[in-house]
């Protein structure tokens, strides 16, 4: 597992209060991890802080699973 994936999962566990085993790469934030739309806004902010990337609103709207987040960060981090 990549370093990015580890860090993303750690943030998701901390913010959503879910068990680490549930945070698989294909887990959907809303359907599988109990997040609502505001939780996703908060997660995106946390990813931006952690990785120093900017995730504009139109990109954030397309992030619905853990792997979507990892992929976006891998492709865009400096």
């Amino acid at each position, binding site marked *: 597992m990549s370093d990015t994936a580890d860090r993303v999962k750690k943030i998701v566990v901390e*913010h*959503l*209060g879910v068990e680490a085993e549930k945070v698989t790469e294909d887990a959907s934030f809303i359907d599988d991890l*109990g997040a609502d739309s*505001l*939780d996703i*806004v*908060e997660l995106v*902010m946390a990813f931006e*802080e952690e990785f120093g990337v900017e995730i504009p609103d139109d990109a954030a709207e397309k992030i619905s699973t853990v792997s979507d987040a990892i992929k976006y960060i891998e492709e865009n981090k400096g």
Partner: protein
Amino acid sequence: MRRVVVTGLGLVTPLGADVETVWANILASKSGAGPITKFDTTGQKCLIACEVKPADHEYGFDAGKRVDHKIQRQVDPFIVFGIDAAGQALEDAGLTDMSEEDKLMAGCSIGSGIGGLPGIESESLVLAEKGPGRVSPHFVHGRLINLISGQVSIKYGLKGPNHAVVTACSTGAHSIGDAARMIRDGDADIMLAGGAESTVCPIGIAGFAQARALNCSYNDRPEQASRPYDKDRDGFVMGEGAGVLVLEEYEHAKARGAKIYCEVIGYGLSGDAYHVTAPHPDGDGAYRSMQMALKKAGMTPADIDYINAHGTSTMADTIELGAVRRLFGDAIGNVSMSSTKSAIGHLLGGAGAVESIFCILALRDQIVPPTLNLDNPDEGCEGVDLVPHVARKREVRAVLNNSFGFGGTNASLVMRKID
């Protein structure tokens, strides 16, 4: 007329996070005061508070017991305290599993005096340092005063009135009085009523200290700092926590065989129309508030055995006492009056609810809680039993609880034992 009784209690305080532990500590004359641990107090005039203790403390608070991890992260501590106290009260009343029909007639009236000040402070710093794009999306609804009532209603499915009082330090008492009226008027059969506060944060301590309301001269002796009626009192000690009661329509409670603590029989309210922070020097507002509560209860002062005073450990203590003396006349010789703020500090918007619970426990156990640190009663205290230092067994048939707030807002509640 529909009567209102109390069938459940919940407490989170600096002396414990469940009703029986708090009450045992109050009766044992313990103090919840200590040096502030929540933030670095460098530069502050006031260095002490009555903080709710962490989970690993002998009588600490474990937020994880009743509040979802995600909600704990999103909301201010006053909401966390309120949700927990409401949960305790529902559990105590045996109402955690209500029918859909009951839920339609069950509501919330849980307020706060100030609301999410720590979060407003910290998020303002995020805004200043990192810009608007870093402000939490949960900022607003994690700080709003009515979000204890909101969160509790969502958690337990309570679909009746959803209300939140904001009357500074009389919030808790007004919340109970308003909720009792909603039951009496038929808006609800069950109401969770109370208040919560948590403003032990740099701006909260600095603000009250600048208003000359906080004790700043006992920083080296925190347990002696809250000393209502004492000659050497010098301002209140900030407390935090929550108190929530289950109020229930009498026939509804009886029909389900509920444990009934007491009846909420009188509620009085008034405004001083005098000054933003100082009470009227004659105690006029306090007098009229108590008078109205007694009138509504159909009682005379001689019926009251215990008063839980507002008694914040400020100059206002003797003004309240003067009003009681004037209203009670000769009956002052029978009544016991104490301030439990001497033990847990001033819970601001939570005070009236927490102190009403102490009144109810005094009715239940026939014992009155003490006023700590009352070494040298001030002038004007002569001939009044202020229950110095230690709790005392005595007959308690009916009780009066006073709460007064900035803005000149006053609330009084009368409760009595029920046969």
